[in-house]
């Protein structure tokens, strides 16, 4: 893979030219926060402090941070189970996220969702979905609702390269185009779906995003290691959504450093150590962005390092918060099933809702 980090065009794109130093530094901070959060979570996972899956986003940070940095009040986000990066990028706190991983009542989903199911509707963040591509029509629906309400907005709907082969994604593409829905599908192409390489799971000519062509949807395919590039290219899709209410499909090349999930015992079998090393050394989005900012004189080595330390500290504090938080109770099992029951409305009080006895 060739580095595009110093592509002059995208740095010069209007959306990037107007960035303040503060904003640029915030992107670096956000990426450090994702990485440190996950590294700490991984440690805790290995100590047996959480259950289920833990799908790490490390290596892909620029995608969530770069794309989400473009969003405004009426723009929404939804993603799959590899959702920590997006959650932190939309502004969720490490505390609520870490506590969720620990299965605590203080978690963003009260310990009911776990790693795959982070949510923050108040931040326009709709999860966190475990069924591959299951979120793709939901993203369509969010964008549909924006249009229905007459709001100028869009929905970024993230998915993996393996997810393109679920039928519901295609149904969503057709509807998006047919009805002019402002949804932007972002395929985070990290080249593997579990242990299966892109080539072994998908048939295509030049790129996955090209499938959009058959639906008359605009598409693009580009490298995701550089935030400037991501912002420049994604902004075109956001404008298209805002101005023309038309969908887009963006395929962003990226890479995950860890296995599919922490439980992926084969993480190093289906791809070579060199391949992973090459990404870490030559294409790491944090390194690349830090280098850019240093070259631009926006930041110095020490300040960057301090951002990293702060992120690490925040993650450690989040662990403390999570550890000190209580678990949900057995009675909590039956909360959050039905709105009407939780809110003790007439509807919620009539008839039997739970069949335990």
């Amino acid at each position, binding site marked *: 893979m060739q580095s595009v980090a110093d592509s002059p065009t995208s740095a010069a794109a209007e959306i990037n030219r107007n960035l303040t130093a503060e904003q640029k530094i915030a992107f670096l901070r956000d990426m450090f926060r994702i990485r440190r959060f996950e590294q700490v979570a991984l440690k805790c996972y290995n100590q047996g402090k959480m259950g289920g899956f833990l799908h790490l986003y490390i290596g892909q940070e620029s995608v969530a941070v770069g794309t989400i940095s473009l969003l405004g009040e009426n723009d929404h986000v939804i993603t799959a189970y590899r959702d920590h990066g997006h959650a932190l990028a939309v502004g969720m706190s490490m505390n609520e996220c870490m506590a969720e991983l620990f299965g605590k009542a203080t978690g963003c989903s009260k310990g009911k969702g776990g790693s795959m199911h982070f949510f923050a509707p108040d931040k326009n963040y709709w999860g966190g979905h475990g069924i591959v591509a299951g979120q*793709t029509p*939901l993203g*369509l*629906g*969010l964008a549909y609702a924006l249009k229905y*309400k007459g709001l100028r907005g869009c929905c970024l709907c993230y998915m993996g390269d393996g997810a393109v082969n679920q039928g519901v994604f295609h*149904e969503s593409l057709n509807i998006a185009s047919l009805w002019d829905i402002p949804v932007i599908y972002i395929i985070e192409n990290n080249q593997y779906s579990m242990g299966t390489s892109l080539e072994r799971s998908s048939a295509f000519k030049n790129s996955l995003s090209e499938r959009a062509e058959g639906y008359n949807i605009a598409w693009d395919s580009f490298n995701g290691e550089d935030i400037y590039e991501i912002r420049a290219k994604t902004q075109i899709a956001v404008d298209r959504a805002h101005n023309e209410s038309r969908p887009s499909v963006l395929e962003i090349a990226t890479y995950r450093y860890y296995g599919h999930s922490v439980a992926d015992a084969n993480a190093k079998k289906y791809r070579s150590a060199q391949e992973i090393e090459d990404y870490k050394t030559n294409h790491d989005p944090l390194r690349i962005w830090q280098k850019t900012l240093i070259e631009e004189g926006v930041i110095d080595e020490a300040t960057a390092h301090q951002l990293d330390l702060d992120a690490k500290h925040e993650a450690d504090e989040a662990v403390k918060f999570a550890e000190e938080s209580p678990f949900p109770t057995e009675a909590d099992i039956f909360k959050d099933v039905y709105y009407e029951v939780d809110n003790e409305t007439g509807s919620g009080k009539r008839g039997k809702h739970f*069949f335990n006895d």
Partner: protein
Amino acid sequence: MALINYRKAINDALAEEIMRDENVFIIGEEVAEYNGAYKVTEGLWKRFGDKRLVDAPISEAGFIGLGVGASMLGLRPVIELMFWSFAFVAYDQIVNNAGCVRYMSGGLINCPIVIRGPANGGTNVGATHSHTPENILANVPGVKVVAPATAYDAKGLMKSAIRDNDPVFVMENTLLYGEQWEVPEEEYLIPLGSADVKREGTDISLIAHGRSVLIALAAADILAAEHNINAEVVDLRSIRPLDEDAIVQSVRKTHRAVLVDENKPFCGVSAQIASMLQEKAFDDLDAPIGRVNTLDAPAIYSPPVEKLQLPNAQRVVSKALTVCA
């Protein structure tokens, strides 16, 4: 009260709720310009236009998922399935997204969606088009399922379903669309979770939902006329939430029960009711609870034979006689 048919009762409910709440809209195949495959949405597109009545491509998973997503942002989509049988191509969206999103988000997200359409056999459309999935859907905590047997109930339940803040699945019946009942002019709602005693009786409880209620009523007539048995007919109306009290109360009175239900027998709704009754009314029961279901094979096409496959009054009568013997 005016006599109106089941189809029109639903149509009125939809129209009233569309007018009442700007967030209510209808999506489905052929619901708008074509007026609905079974004409349930007749005239609504003309009255309310493209925004509120939306013709969808044949992509049930896509447009149901769209509905779930839109409901998360506060809209109140009413999705028509041309047949509930087609839910199976959208099952993941229904169970996992509509059914689980509130829970997985710790209650942060609501999903006030309605999915409605016919779920019945008896029209010779074959195995793939004759499913009655109310049992398997009601298995899922997080969703609600209702099955109106009359125009009156259909209207009242539909309006409650649309106003409910949880996902509600309404099981209609193509064989009932043309049937008439009295329906008041003034607005009314029927709450979810309330059964209805459609006929009072003392000797045996016939417990049913959907069109099986009418079969139970017909059987009750025969039992009264020919066998001097005074049957009570309890219409569940709502499968989940379920009005267990009403069921148990009836059986406490009659001491006998036959459950009538168009589901295939294995784990049909009547299995759940029987299981519940034997536990909660054990000492009240003078005889085993009988069940009358669709004969246990895929729906046969052959028109006269499909009639035999579905529950019918004669089978209910025989079963009741056994239970009363």
